[in-house]
């Protein structure tokens, strides 16, 4: 069964450093998402991406964040200058054709980011 994969599973970085989190969505999916979960808090939507551009972003997704689909398979989240409060589990998800109306989003296992 196809699945969403994410690398690395864990990342430790120093405050102010740039990190890139990588995701490989399910191959025939067209819509891609990033969510995050700060320890002890809800899973929060960050951004959705379709046709090589951002469809929607939350207020969390400020200028320090960016997303990219550099090739036909990868989907990345870049945090330019990490802050302590960026420490969280980051989930990538993908969905098929409509990107809404109840279409199932398939999630990866997450990348746990720790900013020191």
């Amino acid at each position: 069964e196809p699945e969403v994969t994410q690398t690395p599973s864990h990342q430790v970085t120093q405050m102010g450093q740039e990190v890139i989190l990588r995701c490989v969505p399910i191959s025939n999916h067209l819509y891609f998402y990033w969510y995050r979960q700060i320890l002890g808090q809800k899973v929060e939507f960050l951004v959705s991406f379709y046709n090589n551009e951002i469809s929607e972003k939350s207020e969390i997704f400020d200028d320090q964040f960016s997303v990219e689909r550099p090739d036909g398979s990868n989907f990345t989240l870049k945090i330019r200058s990490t802050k302590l409060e960026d420490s969280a589990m980051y989930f990538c998800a993908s969905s098929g054709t409509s990107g809404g109306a109840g279409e199932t989003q398939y999630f990866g296992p997450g990348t746990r980011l720790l900013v020191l």
Partner: protein
Amino acid sequence: AQSVTQPDIHITVSEGASLELRCNYSYGATPYLFWYVQSPGQGLQLLLKYFSGDTLVQGIKGFEAEFKRSQSSFNLRKPSVHWSDAAEYFCAVELAGKLIFGQGTELSVKP
């Protein structure tokens, strides 16, 4: 604003006992509702979803959920819990393609 509330942060049940996890939502229109499960080290796996029609929906692993519009609820149930059901369970509502999650309920199963 749209929101999802899971009142129980942690529930413990005995293996073989029945289970009900509560979920309440705040949403103006007919919602698309989901239950996901997260086992340790795993991603979020869809258990079931509700769009319209029959208010009792069946999912994987023997789970079911009932949509009650009058109570703004979408509670998850299982008649007999197995030790492998120990995990964290998330209720979510979809808003324009993005999922809004509840805070999750951690389920422990005792022998």
